[in-house]
C-alpha cells in the first residue's frame, strides 16, 4: 500500500495512459476457467460488511472484491501492485497548487449491482456517511484532513463543506496538504455507495446493499457465512472469475488445514497451524505459478519498542544500539514457524516508499556481534534492570523469553510481564500506565506510506496524549522536525527523505530494535488457479481474480 | 422379661408327624478378603408343623445366616454335595477358594416337606419363597422399599404366588392389613412406608409375609428394633396369627425373654454351631450347656439386687479361624483338657429330645442346672 503524491505525479508526467493500459491489461488476465464457486474460510466473524464501518483485515479482503473506489490498487503482483491507481476516477485528479484541493472526474460505465449508475455523489455520500456521528465509525480519524468533516462529526452539519459534487466531477478540499490522501482513498471507508445505502444510517451496519465492484454481498449470516456473487452490471475491467465466493466462518486453524487438504476449502483465510508450513513447502514447493504455497512480504513490522521516557533508555543511544546488536532476529523469527518473516534492522519495510536496504545491524548472531553489543553496552547499563512486556498468547511468551535471554547477554536483567494483547497496547499507549522498558510490538500499516509508519509511530508530539501509538516515547525535537518536513514532500524527494530518516535514526539514536517484517503465508487447495497476491491491497490471493482450474 | 416359663399349648403333636423343616448338618462358608468365614458350621434342627422354634444366640453366631441359607438367599451362593464321611470343613474351604463364581458355599440338607431346598431348582425356590415359606426381617424401615406404596408391595407379594388379578390382590392386601391390626386399611394401603411408625411397619411386613398363607414363617429378630410395648404387641400378633392359621414359626432372637414367651422348642447357637436343643421348658428349667447357663445367668431380673449383670467373660471366637475343639471352651469356666482338643457332638443323654454339645458328665450338668435355677429363685447371683 505505498502512496506518494510525488511518485504519482512523476509517473503521471511519464504517462497516465500507459498506467491505464497496464492496469487494464493486468486485470484482463484470466487464464483459467470462469465460473464455479471459490470457498474461503475465516476463523472468526468479520466485524461488519458495511463499507463505512468495516475495519478489519479479513473483512477488507472481501471489500476489495466488492468495492469500487476513486483510487485503488491494481490487481497485480509486486511493485506494480503498490501504486495507487485511478479506478472510478478517470485518470489522476487535478490537484491545486497549494496541494489542498483535489478534483476527480468520474469515469462513466460503472454500475451498482442493482443497476444504479456510479456518480460523483456516490463518493461524496460515502464521505458524509463515514462522518455521520450516528454511524459511530472507526474510520472517522481518517477524515481529519477533510475540510468540514469535523462539523459533521460533531453533529453540527449534515454534509462536509469541503466535499462538492459538480456534475461528473468530485471536488475535495483538505484542511492542509496531505500527500497520503490518495492512498487513504483506497480504504473501503471511501468506496462508492448507492443512494439507498447513503440513506441508511445505522451504527449496527447494513448487511444487504448494492456494490459497484466485481462482486456484491448476496447474503450474510453473522457468525456463520457470507456469500458474494458476481456483480452482473460490472464493466470496470477488473477480473470477476468465480461465479460465487462462499465464505464459511468459525473453524479453527486445524480444521481449516484439513479442509484445504481435502479440497473442501480453497483458501483458509484464518490461517493454518504455524508448524505446518515447513512440511507443506517441502511437499508443494514454494511460490510456484499457481502453486499451493505462496509467501509474500507484508507491509508490517515486528519490533521492540524501547521506552525512552524511563531512566534505562532515556538519552542512552548506545544502550539502544547494544540492544540492536544483541537481539537474535533469527531465533525470534523461528518461533513463528517456517517463513514467518524477513529479518530486519530498519524501521520501514521492504516495498514501501523510502525503503533502502541498510545493513546497520546483524541479522545473525555471531561471537563478533556479541562483542560489539557488549562494547556499546559497557558503561551504559544504568541499573541493569528492565521490565519486558509481551502478549500472553500464541508465540509471544516464547519470544519474550528469547528477548530476555538476549538482554542478559549484554547485562540487562529483564523481568517479563505477559498481558492480554489488547491490554498491552492500550496500557503502553497511555503515559500513566506505560511501566515497561521494552515492549514487543507489532504494527501493520493501514495504507502503504511511510507517514503511516514513521510519523504515526515516532512523532514525539503525541507522547503526552492520554492514548497514542508512540510506544518508544521517542521525543527528539530534531527528528520531530525532520518527520514533519518529510511528510510534506512528494515523489522521489519524499522517498529519499524518509529513507534518510530511517537510517539516521537507526544508526545514531535507535528508538527501536526492529526484528522482523512478517510474511503473508498462503496455502491453497489444489483446485484453484489465477493466483495473484498483492499485499499492498490485502493479504492473500485476490478473490476476484482467483479462479477454478 | 421374667424367666418363668409357661409351657406353650400350641405345640402340635410332636412325635408322630414328620418335621415340616428338617435341617441336617448345614454349613455355610463365605469367602472374604480376610479369608474364609465359617458362618454356619454344622447346624441341625427341625421344625414341626404349627410349632414355634426359637433360635437364640448372640450377634454373629450364625442364626440369621442359617435361615438365609435354608432359603438360598445368600448372594452368589453355591452348593456343594458331600458324602457323609468327607471332611466337610476342609472340602468346603478348598472348593470355595477355587471357585471364581461363588462367594459363599453351603452344604448339608434342608428338607421341607421332604424336598431338599438346597438342591431345589431356582424356579422351585422362587415358588417356595414367599409362598410356602415366608421370611420377615429385623428392621422394617429398611426392609420395605421406600419408593413404593405398601399396597404395591403387598400386591406384588400376592401376585407372585396367586393367580389373581390386581384388583383381587388389592382386596386381599386390604384384608391382610386389617388382619394385622392396621386401622383404616383401605386408605392406608396407598401410603408409603415412611408414613408408618416402626410397629406399624412391622405389622405390614407380617401382613406381607402371611398374605400367601405360608406354612412356615421365619422371623429374623422381628422385635429387636422396636420398643418394649410394641415388641409385646408384635409378638402377640404373631402368636395369634399362628394360632389362627397353624403356621409354623422360626423365631430368631438374641432375647431369651422372647424365647420364653413364644417358643415351643429352642435351639441355642454359639459360634456357628448348635450347643443345646430342647423344649423351652427344658432350656429354662434344666439347661445342660455352660453357655446356656451363662445366658440365663446374665438375664436381668427385676427382683435382683446386684448392681452389675453377670457377664460371660471373653469374646466369641472369630469364625475365620475357629479354635479346635469346643468353641466355647476358651470362655467356659468348666472346661478341661479334652474340651480344647475334641469337638463335642450334639447328643442327648438318653431321655427325650434334649440335646447338648458338652463333655461334662450328666451329673455335672444336672448339678449346675440346679444351681442356676435355684439362684434365680432365691435371688442370689450365680
Amino acid at each position, binding site marked *: 500500500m505505498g502512496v506518494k503524491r510525488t511518485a504519482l505525479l512523476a509517473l503521471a508526467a511519464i504517462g497516465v495512459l500507459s498506467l491505464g493500459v497496464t492496469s487494464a491489461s493486468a486485470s484482463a488476465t484470466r487464464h483459467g476457467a470462469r465460473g464455479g464457486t471459490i470457498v474461503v474460510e475465516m476463523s472468526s466473524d468479520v466485524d461488519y460488511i458495511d463499507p463505512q464501518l468495516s475495519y478489519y483485515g479479513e473483512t477488507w479482503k472481501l471489500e476489495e472484491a466488492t468495492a469500487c473506489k476513486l483510487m485503488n490498487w491494481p490487481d497485480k503482483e509486486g511493485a506494480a501492485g503498490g501504486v495507487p491507481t485511478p479506478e472510478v476516477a478517470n485518470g489522476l485528479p487535478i490537484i491545486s497548487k497549494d496541494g489542498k484541493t483535489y478534483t476527480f472526474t468520474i469515469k462513466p460505465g460503472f454500475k451498482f449491482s442493482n443497476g444504479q449508475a456510479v456518480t460523483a455523489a456516490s463518493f461524496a455520500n460515502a464521505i458524509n456517511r463515514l462522518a455521520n456521528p450516528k454511524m*459511530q465509525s472507526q474510520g472517522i*480519524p481518517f477524515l481529519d484532513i477533510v475540510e468540514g468533516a469535523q462539523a459533521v462529526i460533531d453533529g453540527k452539519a449534515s454534509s462536509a463543506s469541503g466535499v462538492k459534487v459538480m456534475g461528473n466531477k468530485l471536488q475535495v478540499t483538505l484542511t492542509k496538504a496531505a500527500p497520503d490522501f490518495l492512498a487513504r482513498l483506497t480504504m473501503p471507508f471511501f468506496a462508492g455507495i448507492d443512494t439507498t445505502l447513503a440513506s441508511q444510517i445505522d451504527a449496527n451496519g447494513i448487511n444487504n446493499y448494492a456494490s459497484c465492484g466485481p462482486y456484491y454481498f448476496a447474503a450474510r*449470516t453473522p457468525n456463520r457465512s*457470507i456469500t458474494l456473487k458476481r456483480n452482473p452490471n460490472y464493466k470496470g475491467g477488473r477480473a470477476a472469475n468465480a461465479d460465487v465466493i*462462499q465464505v464459511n466462518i468459525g473453524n479453527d486453524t486445524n480444521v481449516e488445514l484439513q479442509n484445504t487438504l481435502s479440497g473442501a476449502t480453497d483458501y483458509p483465510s484464518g490461517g493454518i497451524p504455524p508448524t505446518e508450513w515447513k512440511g507443506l513447502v517441502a511437499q508443494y514447493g514454494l511460490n510456484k505459478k499457481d502453486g499451493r504455497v505462496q509467501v509474500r512480504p507484508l507491509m508490517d513490522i515486528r519490533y521492540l519498542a524501547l521506552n525512552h521516557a524511563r531512566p534505562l533508555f532515556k538519552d542512552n543511544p548506545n544502550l539502544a544500539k547494544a540492544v540492536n546488536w544483541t537481539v537474535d532476529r533469527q531465533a525470534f523469527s523461528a518461533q513463528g514457524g517456517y517463513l514467518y518473516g524477513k529479518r530486519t534492522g530498519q524501521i520501514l519495510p521492504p516495498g514501501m516508499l523510502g525503503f533502502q536496504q541498510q545493513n546497520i545491524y546483524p541479522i545473525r548472531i555471531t561471537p563478533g556481534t556479541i562483542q560489539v553489543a557488549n562494547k556499546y553496552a559497557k558503561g551504559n547499563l544504568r541499573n541493569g534492570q528492565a521490565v519486558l512486556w509481551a502478549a500472553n498468547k500464541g508465540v509471544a511468551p516464547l519470544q519474550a523469553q528469547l528477548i530476555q535471554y538476549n538482554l542478559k547477554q549484554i547485562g540487562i536483567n529483564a523481568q517479563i510481564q505477559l*498481558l492480554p494483547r489488547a491490554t498491552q497496547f*492500550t496500557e503502553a499507549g497511555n503515559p500513566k500506565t506505560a511501566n515497561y522498558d521494552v515492549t514487543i510490538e507489532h504494527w501493520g500499516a493501514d495504507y502503504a506510506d511511510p507517514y503511516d509508519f514513521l510519523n*504515526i509511530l515516532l512523532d514525539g508530539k503525541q507522547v503526552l496524549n492520554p*492514548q497514542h501509538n508512540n510506544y518508544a516515547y521517542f521525543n527528539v525535537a530534531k527528528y520531530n522536525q525532520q518527520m514533519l518536513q518529510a511528510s510534506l514532500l512528494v515523489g522521489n524527494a519524499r522517498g529519499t527523505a524518509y529513507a534518510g530518516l530511517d537510517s539516521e535514526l537507526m544508526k545514531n539514536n535507535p528508538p527501536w530494535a526492529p526484528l522482523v517484517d512478517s510474511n503473508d503465508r498462503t496455502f491453497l487447495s489444489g483446485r484453484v488457479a489465477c493466483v495473484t497476491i498483492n499485499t499492498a491491497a490485502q493479504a492473500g490471493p485476490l478473490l476476484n481474480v482467483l479462479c477454478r482450474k | 422379661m421374667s424367666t418363668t416359663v409357661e409351657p406353650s399349648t400350641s405345640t402340635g403333636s410332636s412325635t408322630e408327624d414328620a418335621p415340616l423343616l428338617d435341617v441336617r448338618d448345614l454349613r455355610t462358608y463365605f469367602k472374604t478378603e480376610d479369608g474364609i468365614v465359617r458362618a454356619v458350621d454344622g447346624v441341625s434342627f427341625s421344625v414341626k408343623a404349627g410349632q414355634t422354634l426359637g433360635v437364640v444366640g448372640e450377634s454373629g453366631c450364625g442364626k440369621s445366616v442359617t435361615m438365609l441359607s435354608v432359603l438360598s438367599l445368600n448372594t452368589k451362593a453355591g452348593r456343594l454335595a458331600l458324602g457323609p464321611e468327607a471332611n466337610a470343613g476342609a472340602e468346603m474351604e478348598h472348593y470355595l477358594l477355587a471357585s471364581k463364581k461363588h462367594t459363599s458355599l453351603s452344604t448339608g440338607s434342608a428338607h421341607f416337606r421332604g424336598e431338599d431346598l438346597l438342591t431345589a431348582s431356582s424356579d422351585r425356590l422362587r415358588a417356595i*419363597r414367599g409362598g410356602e415359606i415366608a421370611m420377615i426381617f429385623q428392621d422394617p424401615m429398611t426392609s420395605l422399599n421406600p419408593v413404593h406404596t405398601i399396597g404395591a408391595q403387598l400386591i406384588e407379594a400376592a401376585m407372585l404366588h396367586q393367580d389373581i388379578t390386581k384388583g383381587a390382590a388389592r382386596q386381599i392386601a386390604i384384608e391382610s392389613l386389617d388382619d394385622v391390626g392396621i386401622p383404616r386399611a383401605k386408605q392406608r394401603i396407598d401410603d408409603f412406608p415412611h408414613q408408618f411408625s416402626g410397629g406399624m411397619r412391622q405389622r405390614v411386613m407380617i401382613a406381607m409375609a402371611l398374605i400367601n398363607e405360608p406354612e412356615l414363617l421365619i422371623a429374623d429378630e422381628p422385635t429387636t428394633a422396636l420398643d418394649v410395648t410394641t415388641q409385646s404387641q408384635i409378638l402377640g400378633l404373631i402368636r395369634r396369627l399362628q394360632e389362627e392359621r397353624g403356621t409354623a414359626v422360626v423365631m430368631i432372637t438374641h432375647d431369651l425373654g422372647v424365647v420364653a414367651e413364644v417358643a415351643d422348642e429352642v435351639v441355642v447357637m454359639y459360634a456357628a454351631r448348635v450347643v443345646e436343643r430342647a423344649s423351652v421348658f427344658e432350656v429354662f428349667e434344666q439347661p445342660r450347656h455352660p453357655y446356656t447357663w451363662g445366658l440365663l445367668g446374665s438375664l436381668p431380673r427385676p427382683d435382683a439386687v446386684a448392681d452389675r449383670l453377670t457377664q460371660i467373660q471373653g469374646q466369641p471366637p472369630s469364625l475365620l479361624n475357629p479354635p479346635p475343639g469346643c468353641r466355647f471352651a476358651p470362655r467356659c469356666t468348666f472346661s478341661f483338657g479334652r474340651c480344647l482338643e475334641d469337638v463335642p457332638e450334639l447328643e442327648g443323654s438318653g431321655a427325650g429330645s434334649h440335646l447338648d454339645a458338652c463333655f461334662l458328665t450328666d451329673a455335672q450338668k444336672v448339678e449346675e442346672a440346679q444351681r442356676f435355677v435355684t439362684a434365680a429363685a432365691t435371688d442370689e447371683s450365680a
Partner: protein
Amino acid sequence: MSTYIIKRFLWAIFLIVCVTMITYVLFFLVPADPARLAAGKSATPADVARVSKQLGLDKPVYVQYGLFLKRLILEQSLGRSYVNRRTVNQMVFEAAPVTAGLVIGGAILWMLIALPVGILSALRPRSLVDRSAMIFVLVGISAPVIWVGLLLQYFVGFRLGWLPNSGYCNVFNPPVGSSCGGPWDWFTHMILPWTTFAILFAAAYARMVRANVMDTLGEDYVRTARAKGAPEHSVVRHHVLRNALLPVVTMLGLDIGVALGGAIFTEAIFNLPGLGRLTVTSVESLDLPTVQGVVVFATFAIIIISFTVDILYAYIDPRIRLA
C-alpha cells in the same frame, strides 16, 4: 408449596443480581479499555472520548451497572455488543438452541451408554464386562475433552471422511447462503460433537450408576423382595433401579444446567455457534455486554433447571414430598 416457590423465586433474583454484579466487577478490573478498542487503532483521544460517551463507558461503574439492571428488568434487553453492535438478546437466542441441541442430545447419548454399562457392571461385579467397563470409565474420565474431540475430528472426520469434521446445520430455516440444512444434515454434523461431549459424562455416570446399583443391591428391601420370591429381573427393575437412579436424576439436572452455559471445548473444536463459543469470542474481545448476556442466560438456565429437578425429585421420591 407456594411459600416454597416464592422463596425460590426470590433466591433466584438474588442469585442473578450477585452473578451479574460479580461479572461487572471482574470486567472492570481488567485493565484494557473497551472504548479504546472500539475506537480503532488510529483513534485520537477525542475519538476515544467520543466512543466512550456513546457506549456509556464514561459513567462510574455503579451507574453503568444500574443502567444495565434497569434495562434488563424494564426492557428485558441485554444491550448491544461493543464489537459488532448486534443486540445481545439476538446473539444469545441464536446461540442457545445450538447449545441446547448439543447438551440434550449429548445427555441422551451419555445416559444410553452409562445406564446399561453401569447396571450390567453392578450386576456382574469383577466379571469381564465389569472390568472392561471400568477401563472405559477410567479412560473416559481421564481423557481431556479437547483431545477426544480433536482425535475424533481428525480420524473420523478428516482421514476416514465418515462424518463432517465441523460446522453446524440448522434443522429449520437454514440461513441464506449456508451449505447445509435440514434434520439429516443437522444430525450427521452433531454425531461427533455429541460423542465428544458425552464421553466424559458417560464415564462418570457409568461409575455412579454402578456404585448406586451395587449399594442398592445390598439393601434390606432387596433381600425382602427376593424373600418374597420375586424373580431376579423383577427385583432389579422394580426394587433396585428406581432407588439406585434417584441420585442420578439430581446430578443429571445439575449437569445439564451447567452445560447449557456452554460446552465450550466441544463447540470450539467443531465450530458450533453456541453459547460456549460466543463466550470465548466475547471474552477475548472484551465485549462486556455479550459476556454479561451469556452469564445471565446461563444463570437463568441453571436456576430453572435445578428448580425443575427439585420438583421432579419430590415427585419420584415419596420421602421428599413438599408439604
